[in-house]
């Protein structure tokens, strides 16, 4: 089941609905990078509220997404990490280093807006 990606102004919002297999995650990565290019989006929000587990593969994929998006001149924000998931991620050692995170969609958009306004 592909992840729905919505365009909201200069940003794209990818809302993960349920547990994703590895193949789904890879598909997401392709889709997001392609759409950023297509719409020349300035930012991407990946909403992981529905994920009850973020293992090392999921974290690596999200970091890859952020890295590739950055190569296209855009920012990525991961939002909606649940407290239990955040706790487990830290135990596991997957900290999404180098990737911006925010509490939820609202905060993610605010962060992107702020980045947009900052000079340079």
């Amino acid at each position, binding site marked *: 089941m592909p992840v729905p990606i919505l365009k909201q102004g200069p940003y794209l919002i990818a809302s993960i609905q349920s547990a994703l297999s590895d193949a789904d995650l890879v598909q997401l990565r392709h889709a997001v990078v392609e759409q950023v290019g297509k719409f020349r989006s300035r930012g991407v929000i990946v909403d992981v509220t529905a994920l009850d587990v973020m293992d090392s593969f999921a974290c690596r994929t999200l970091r890859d997404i952020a890295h590739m998006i950055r190569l296209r001149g855009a920012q990525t924000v991961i939002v909606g990490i649940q407290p239990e998931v955040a706790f487990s991620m830290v135990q596991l050692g997957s*900290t999404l280093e180098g990737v911006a995170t925010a509490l939820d969609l609202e905060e993610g958009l605010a962060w992107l807006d702020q980045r947009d306004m900052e000079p340079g």
Partner: protein
Amino acid sequence: MLLRELVAHLRENRTQLRQEWAQRIAEARLLTAMSNEEILAEATSVYDNYVEALETGTYEALQAYARNLSERIIPRGVETHEVVGIVLLLRDVLARSLFAKYQEDFAKLNRILDAYEPAANRIANTVAVGFVQERERVIREQQEAIRELSTPVLQVRERLLILPIIGVIDPLRARQLTEQLLRGIRTNRAKVVVIDITGVAAMDSHVANHLVQTVEASRLLGATVIVTGLSPEIAQTLVTIGVDLGKMNTVGDLQGGIEEAERLLGYRVTPNKEEKL
């Protein structure tokens, strides 16, 4: 067939048997935390539920009643031995009335008891277990409440949480602290958290690592953490041990930490109009 006769007998003699039971309870000095009126009222309910369970052979209603009863009497200080005691007394009172009624017919008495005893034992068990389970649940809740109380996450301003940590941090407490903080960040939509460790009893590499983990987990929820109360000496020691404090935003004292937090949040601290160039 016999069961119906048994139940009929118990219903017919309800008032008298219930009274006898209440008396036995008083004599045994049970339920001293309750008044006589209360005991009689509860006794009535228990008796009716007891007979109902005997009649239907199903115990769900009794279980529900036992839990309900426990919920009411536990705060009154009623203890397990009392609950077990009164149920057994009722069992005895009813058994005695059966002996009295069927004393002329030994064979019939035996058959009646064959029907009565297993059911009565099951009832005693159901009520006692229901009570104990409820008690254990209450104790667990109280322990949880105590733990939460000892680690308050305070909302001081909008989007700003303060977590003063005091005392000994064992792994269990450290974990509860982190979980509480993360839930607090989500509930309060905090963007900055000030963790004050001035009051932490013993700062070692374990506690420091828990702290680092808490900072990292908080970031995943979009919150920045400022750690205050970490003296330069302790910071130095931790770095020497190999704890990576690089990711931690540290400020000397709590007040300074709050000011830094407000600055991060964009609050204007009273501008210094006296700035001279």
